[in-house]
């Protein structure tokens, strides 16, 4: 018999103290109430949610969207072209050189007095009387495009190479990775310069009259070198991911079910790599942009008169003391883009990297 002296005095029976209806059995529905499965989220949705809470990442996305919007809208609104030298009434305006932002040249002011509407020079003009704002916009276009395409090349080559190496392992992996090691050792800048010189000599005539002429052989050499050299870190990353994914039992389970290697790579391995690949690509873009800017800065970039942020910065060096704003604007733009992509990449990594999940 239970001893309940400690808890309740014997004198007053339980039945009077407690509400007996509470002791009737609980129903199944009441039990189910407690066991609710949490709201269904996929890995992806969960990551997006996390990303939206990261202020830096969100600001970066906003900045990048703003920049992209601007480079599409600006050429429509601003009536100047990037290579157009300011002229008033059809005559080249020599007083329109090196104007400060939001100022008008003498001739332009005269034209305004006589009733003409002239669009303001938001960033001023350069030494050849070209509107600087539109040049910066086009420069941004070039930089972003180069960054994007270069990253895509890196992604595709790196992904395929890394997948093969990682999935098949063994000797295949050994050979492929040694090739990667050799490529790592090659000096990229030197190769770009050499290739630029060679291509200039051989291809420049072939390109006359085509779209590529405007871009120039230098650009092509940049793309080629990216395709040859810069994919290696992506390949290593993908390979590493695949090696660790292969350790999971669900890969073995798929084999036991009779899945062929193609199916396993497609349905099991690659989907689990995607987040890492996206993060890596997001961080690759600013690196590509920066490289292009640097090359343009030293004169190996896009063909004049097509501007690039780097070449604009380079040209601004001359008049630095008198016109500091000419260096300021393209540099600021480079910084903004690179910083935004980097912060976005970091944010993506924090949100999506499975290893950092709690």
């Amino acid at each position, binding site marked *: *018999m*239970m*001893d*309940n002296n*400690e*808890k309740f005095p014997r004198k007053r*029976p*339980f*039945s009077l103290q*407690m509400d*007996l*209806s*509470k*002791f*009737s*059995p*609980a129903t199944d529905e*009441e*039990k*189910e109430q*407690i*066991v*609710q499965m*949490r709201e269904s989220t996929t890995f992806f949705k969960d990551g997006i949610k996390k990303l939206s809470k990261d202020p830096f990442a969100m600001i970066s996305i906003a900045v990048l969207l703003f920049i992209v919007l601007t480079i599409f809208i600006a050429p429509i609104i601003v009536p100047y072209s990037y290579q157009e030298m300011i002229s008033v009434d059809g005559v080249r305006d020599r007083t329109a050189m090196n104007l400060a932002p939001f100022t008008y040249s003498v001739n332009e002011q005269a034209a305004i007095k006589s009733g003409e509407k002239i669009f303001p020079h938001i960033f001023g003009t350069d030494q050849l009387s070209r509107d600087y704002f539109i040049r910066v916009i086009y420069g941004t276009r070039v930089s972003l495009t180069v960054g994007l395409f270069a990253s895509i090349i890196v992604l595709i080559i790196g992904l395929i190479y890394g997948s093969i190496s990682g999935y098949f392992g063994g000797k295949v992996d050994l050979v492929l990775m040694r090739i990667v090691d050799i490529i790592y050792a090659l000096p990229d800048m030197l190769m770009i310069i050499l290739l630029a010189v060679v291509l200039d000599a051989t291809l420049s005539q072939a390109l006359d009259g085509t779209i590529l002429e405007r871009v120039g052989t230098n650009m092509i050499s940049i793309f080629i070198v990216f395709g040859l050299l810069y994919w290696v870190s992506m390949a290593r990353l993908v390979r590493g991911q695949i090696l660790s994914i292969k350790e999971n039992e669900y890969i073995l389970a798929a084999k036991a079910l009779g899945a062929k290697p193609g199916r396993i790579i497609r349905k099991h391995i690659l989907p689990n790599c995607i987040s890492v690949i996206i993060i890596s690509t997001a961080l690759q873009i600013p690196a590509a942009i920066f490289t292009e800017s640097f090359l343009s800065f030293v004169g190996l970039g896009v063909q004049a008169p097509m501007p690039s942020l780097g070449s604009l910065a380079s040209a601004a060096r001359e008049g630095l003391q008198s016109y500091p704003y000419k260096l300021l604007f393209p540099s600021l733009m480079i910084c903004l883009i690179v910083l935004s992509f980097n912060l976005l990449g970091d944010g993506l990594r924090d949100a999506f990297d499975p290893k950092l999940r*709690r």
Partner: protein
Amino acid sequence: MSEILLRVKDLKTSFFTNSGEVKAVNGVSFDLEKGKVLGIVGESGSGKSVTAYSIMRILTDPGKIVGGSVMFEGTELTSLSKKKMREVRGKKISIIFQDPMTSLNPVYTIGNQIEEAIKLHTERNKKEIKARAIEMLTLVGVNEPARRVKQYPYELSGGMRQRVMIAMALACEPDILIADEPTTALDVTIQAQILELMQELQKKMGMAIIMITHDLGVIADMCDEIIVMYGGRVCERGNAEDIFYDPRHEYTKGLLHSIPSAVKSKDRLLSIAGTPIDMLNLPTGCPFFSRCGKAMKICLNEPPEEIRVSETHLASCWVNIKDMIDAEKAEEVK
């Protein structure tokens, strides 16, 4: 009744995660007597490890002790300064962990690691410390201690590493040893060695042990007093005979019936229905409510009061009170 070393009263620890507050420990109380072995049994999510970490104050973010008291030798541990707590850890209360592979630092020799423990809490010189380390290794049954002292963790087997952990924990002769699933990661035959070692050492050094595990067999073998935990609360407490031969909580009963060894015949195992508790969705009443065969309406809303079953045995289950009421009614009828 010997001296009470550790008195835990209504301890509450929560983890403040992005998804909400997880009340990992929700009102746990127990006493630990000098020289006794207390077992804490529970499955994953029961809060048993968190209880130990709360006592030692080694909780990681976002965990925080949110209530209750831990009295050790007259001092309140929960409010002790960090400096003073460091003096307690390793010297008065030690802990050994589950996975010997990750609990030892791979870049230091095992000698170094044991010596570190000694250095932190005693005033001996280098020679004495080295000698003491070798002494500890001999004590825990590591063969060739003078040679082993220079070895690195990767050179040792799982069982050896666990012995080294025990040596580190006992180097300063603590009053209490907390063992958090010390044999779960080891093979059965090695487990037997380690458990035997712990029993030997306990007799020799007289410390109290808190043994945390989910293995009822280990509990039956080692422990004098036992508390059963589920969902952050204590379901039942008592000595070994109370818990194994007269379980009063439905969860304890369920556990005992679901172990194959208890069922010699090939009858169906009586399993506990449902899935383990979701710690983010704790009911206000008894945490075992949704899986309990005898659940009543009161169990959903009100946490069960602790009923004294015998001098040594207490249970937190409304079914016990219901049985008492029924018994009273039966008497009245008579």
